[in-house]
């Protein structure tokens, strides 16, 4: 990683500057918010985990949007704070969960559906939200990180974030084994193949479970 220091960073150019950050966040948020539009209209295309999308789904099916709104909004807030302090805005918490789930849930809960149901409006809404978020972070950076040398525990969070991804594989196998015996066997075989092939076992476990599930279907109760 030492040679990168020798690379010249032109902080005035669009690609490295502070002012292009809000634009980048705006572009990302536009796409992600439109992804939520896709999910709302076609039931496919939300940029998030099943469990988090399920909270939005609960509201769409006539339940409460409260869970999705509070979860998404609080993640967004925490990540804006963290992102400006550590130099990396967490895409998952801020944009995917905050802008993609939390803000649509708030809008839907007050009955304001147009930004989600209209494609072009959804892109515009996302873009504006992203520009605001990016702008806030650029401002906070100016008054905090550029004035102190503290890391605010970035290393701690980095370590925890890295290790949590590893748990998914075993969890999928455990949940496959409780779905049915063939699906469980399938996911174990898939995981073993992926492990020997030196790939993350989560992918193999899912594929194996799905292949066996196709031959020995289970029903959603």
């Amino acid at each position, binding site marked *: 990683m030492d*040679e*990168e220091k020798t690379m010249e*960073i032109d902080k005035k150019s669009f*690609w490295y500057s502070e002012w292009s*950050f809000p634009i*980048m966040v705006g*572009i*990302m948020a*536009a*796409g*992600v918010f439109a992804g939520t539009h*896709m*999910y709302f209209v*076609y039931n496919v295309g*939300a*940029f998030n985990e*099943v*469990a*988090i*999308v399920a909270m939005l789904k609960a509201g769409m099916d006539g339940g409460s949007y*409260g869970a999705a*709104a509070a979860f998404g909004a*609080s*993640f967004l*807030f*925490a990540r804006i*704070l963290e992102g400006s302090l550590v*130099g990396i*805005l*967490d*895409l*998952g*918490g801020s944009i*995917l969960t905050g802008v993609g789930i939390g803000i649509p849930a708030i809008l839907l*809960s007050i009955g304001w559906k147009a930004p989600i149901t209209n494609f072009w409006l959804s*892109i515009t809404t996302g873009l504006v939200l992203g520009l605001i978020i990016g702008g806030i972070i*650029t401002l906070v950076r100016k008054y905090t990180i550029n*004035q*102190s*040398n*503290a890391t605010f*525990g970035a290393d701690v*969070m980095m*370590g*925890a*974030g890295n290790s949590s991804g590893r748990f998914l594989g075993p*969890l999928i196998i455990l*949940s496959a084994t409780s*779905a049915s015996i063939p*699906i469980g066997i399938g996911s174990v075989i898939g995981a073993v193949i992926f492990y020997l092939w030196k790939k*993350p076992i*989560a*992918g193999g476990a*899912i*594929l194996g479970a*799905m292949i066996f*599930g*196709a031959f020995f*279907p*289970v029903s959603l109760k």
Partner: protein
Amino acid sequence: MTILIILLKSILIGGLVGFAAGMGAARMFNAPTVQALGAFRTLGEMNACEGDPASHFSFGLGFFFNAWASTVGAGAFTQDVTHRVIPNWAASVLLLKDKRVEKTVHDPKKMAIAGAIIGIIVVSFLNTTASAIPKSLQVTAVKVLVPAADLLINIVMPIIFWLAAIDAGKRSGLWATIFGGLSAMIMGNAVPGVVLGILIGKGVDELGWTRITRVMMGAVIALFILSGFFRGFDIQMIESFKLQVPSFINNMHSVFNIK
């Protein structure tokens, strides 16, 4: 006809998301000098691939299958599309032409362009093929993936962050425990609270109670009060203690009437 509209929208969405994901990932290699958009796990994983195009590609591929299964099952892409598939595949494509990471993977412009192309392909593929998958596969995916993802997000991730906070020192452990417990009750998930606890704890360790850390603390408290109010946590709490809910609290809630 619907499938054509889905395809056209997917091309636009994939281009936007891919562009920003590629640019954000490349800027991570220059953080914190340059503000980046991404994730710590993405940075760690991309470093782990050590500039080998095959490693980047197969790493992305594993998670692409995962994302595909989840899209088929529940219509949700998983966060891996932006965190892992797009950045790693963009890196892999660039590295095929030039092995020097500092000229390719660390260059926001090249990564943005490669990311946009990969994003268009991936998002279009996921959105259009999901409807073509047999029903029994979808049922399996939901039965297997949803409980696993629930466990990961509600139990495993909070515990990992919590233990990391406790190991990081007395102050971050204390605040992570307080905020983690509160956020599990108020927000339904402990991770945001634990992360805020680490921020405050380590911030005070390094800076003391200065203006910055006090403002952060105030913002965190305001966050808890607001989200507690909007989820109706205050009323639930008073009722759980078998007390009468004061009428002014009910009145305040009816003003905001959030379903």
